[in-house]
C-alpha cells in the first residue's frame, strides 16, 4: 500500500539542540498510528514539521507523492492534513457553529467580490456550508450547542469540537496531539471510540501522540517510539510492549545493585 505521508530522514535542529534526528516514518491512507515517547522526545516537533509550523533542517516529507517541506501551514492544511493541539486552540470569540464553519473558508468557491455583491450563487453556497456544518455537528452530537460560545463547553466537549473542526476541513490525515490529556477514564473510553469511529466513517489516516498507554495500546494498529528525537522502535502494540529498548527509555536502565558488604 503506497504511503500517504512519507517522512524520510527528517532532522530538526534548534541551535545546538537536535529535537528530531533522522526520522523516517510512513503512514498509509487508512492507518491508525501512535507516536509515543518520554517527555521531550520530540513528538510535538514531528507534528509541527508535518503541519508546516517548523521546517526540518534536513530530510523530505511528501504527502501523496508531492513534497510539503517549506510550504505554508495553511497550504499544507489545504492539501489534506488537519491537526488538533496539545492545549486546545479553539476560536474563543466564536460560537461552536462558527468554529466549525471557519474550516470551510479554504474551500470557498465564492470569495470577496461575492461576499460584497451577495448574489444567488453566494447565498446558495452560504446555505450549503451552513447545512454541512450542522450535519457534521450532529454526527458528533454537538448540534444542540451550536449557538453557544465555545468557551462554555465542558473540557471533553471542547476537545471533541476541536476534532470536529479539524474534520470539517475534509483531511486525508488527522494529527491528534495528546487528545486524552486531562480526561477521566470514562472520557478516555469515549475518546477511543470516537477516534475509531472517525477513522472508519471518514476513511482517513490518523496519527496520534499520546501519553496514556491504555489509549495508545487500545486503538493503534502500529506504534512508533521516539526517544531524544530518535526512532527507537516501531511495531504492533504487542511488539512495542515487549521491546526492551522501549522499556529502558521509559523506565531507565536495569542495573544490578552492588552486593552488600559483609
Amino acid at each position, binding site marked *: 500500500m503506497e504511503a500517504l505521508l512519507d517522512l524520510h530522514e527528517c532532522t530538526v535542529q534548534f541551535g545546538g539542540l537536535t529535537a528530531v534526528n533522522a526520522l523516517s516514518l510512513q503512514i498509509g491512507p487508512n492507518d491508525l498510528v501512535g507516536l509515543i515517547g518520554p517527555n521531550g522526545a520530540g513528538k510535538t516537533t514531528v507534528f509541527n514539521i508535518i*503541519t*508546516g*509550523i517548523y521546517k526540518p533542517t534536513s530530510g523530505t516529507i511528501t504527502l501523496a507523492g508531492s513534497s510539503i517541506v517549506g510550504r*505554508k*501551514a*495553511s*497550504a499544507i*492544511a*489545504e492539501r489534506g492534513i*488537519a*491537526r488538533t*493541539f496539545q492545549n486546545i*486552540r*479553539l*476560536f*474563543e*470569540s*466564536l*460560537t461552536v*457553529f*462558527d468554529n466549525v*464553519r*471557519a*474550516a*470551510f*473558508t*479554504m*474551500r*470557498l468557491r*465564492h*470569495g*470577496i467580490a*461575492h*461576499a*460584497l*455583491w*451577495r448574489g444567488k450563487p*453566494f*447565498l446558495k*453556497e*452560504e*446555505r450549503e*456550508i*451552513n447545512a454541512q456544518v*450542522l450535519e457534521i455537528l450532529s454526527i458528533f452530537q454537538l*448540534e*444542540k*450547542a*451550536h*449557538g*453557544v460560545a465555545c468557551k462554555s463547553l465542558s473540557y471533553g466537549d471542547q476537545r471533541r469540537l476541536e476534532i470536529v*473542526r*479539524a474534520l*470539517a*476541513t475534509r483531511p486525508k490525515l488527522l494529527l491528534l496531539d495528546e487528545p486524552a490529556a486531562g480526561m477521566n477514564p470514562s472520557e478516555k473510553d469515549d475518546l477511543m471510540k470516537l477516534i475509531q469511529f472517525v477513522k472508519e466513517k471518514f476513511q482517513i489516516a490518523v496519527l496520534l501522540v499520546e501519553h496514556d498507554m491504555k489509549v495508545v495500546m487500545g486503538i493503534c494498529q502500529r506504534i512508533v517510539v521516539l526517544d531524544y528525537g530518535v526512532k527507537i522502535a516501531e511495531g504492533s502494540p504487542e511488539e512495542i510492549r515487549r521491546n526492551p529498548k522501549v522499556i529502558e527509555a521509559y523506565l531507565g536502565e536495569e542495573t544490578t545493585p552492588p552486593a552488600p558488604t559483609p
Partner: protein
Amino acid sequence: MRDWSKFALLGAILVSLLVSQFIHLDPYFSIVVVNIGINIILAVSLNLVNGYTGQFSLGHAGFMAIGAYTSAAITSFGGPRWFDWLGGINAFTTSTLFVVALIVGGLAAALAGLVIGVPSLRLKGDYLAIATLGFGEIIRVIIQNTDAMGGSRGFSVSGIYTTIFWTYSVAAITIYVVVNLVHSAYGRGFLTVRDDEIAAEAIGVNTTKYKVVAFVLASFFAGIAGGLYAHFIGYLTPEGFGFMKSIEIIVMVILGGMGNTVGVIFAAILLTILPEVLRPVQQYRMVIYSLMLIILMLTRPQGLFGGLTWRRSTSWLRRKKIPLEDGSAA
C-alpha cells in the same frame, strides 16, 4: 431568500442625497455632521484591521494623508485640464472630477497599504504597532518635504466639493463593505486570525493574505476619507495627519468595542461631538480626553459595546428554531 443589505445601502445613499439637497443646516452643524461622517469612515475601516482581524495598526492617519494629498493634487493640477476637456465647470464636471480624485486617492492609499502591509504584517502585537506608527511618521515627513504639495507651509485645496451626500454615501458604502465582508463564510477568516493565528493556519486560513486584505481595504477607505476631508477643510498641513490623529481613530475603535461595527459608529459620533461639547473648556479638552481614556481602560476596556455581538451567523436557522440544551431556542 434574498439579501436586503444592497437595498439598505441604496436607501442610505438616497436619504443622504435628500438630506443634502433639501435640509438646510446651520453651517456649524453641517461641519459637525460632515466630520462625524468622515470619522465613521475612518473608524469603521480601521475596525476591520484592529477589531475584526486583531492587528494593531497605529498608522491609519498616514493613509488618510496619502488620500488627502493625492486627491487634492488631482483636483488642483488635473482640474483645469478636466474642465477644459469636458467644456466648463458645472455640477456634472465637478462631481465626476471629485469622484475620480477620491477614487484615485483611495487607490494610492491602498497601494501604500500593500507596500507597508506586506512586510509589517509579519510582525506581531507591539512590534506591528510601532512599525505602523513608524510608517505613519515617515509618510508625514515625506509630505513635509514635498514642496510641490506645500510641505510644512500647507497646501490650498482647489475646491470645496465635499457635501453631506458624498460623505454619508461613502460612509454607507464603507459600512456595507465591512459588515458584509465579515459576515460571510469568507469573512470568518478574519476573526480566526484575530483569535488564534496558529489554529487558523491549521484549518487552511492563509493568515498573511487575510491580514493584507484587511489592511489594504482599510487603507483604501482611509484614503477616500482623506480626500473627503481635504475638499472639506480646504487647506492641508502634514501635522494634521500625525500620530495624534491615528490615536483619535484608535480610541473610537476601542471605545466602540473592537469588532463591533455598530459600537464603533456610535463611538465615532460620540467622540466627534465631544470636542464641540467641550468647546467652552477648550484648553482643558485634551486633559479631560486623556483622563477619560485612562479611566475607560481601567474600568471598561472592552469599550462601551464590546462583548455584545450581533448574532447573525445563523440567521437562516432562526426560521426553524432549534431548542438548545438549556431550554431556550436559538
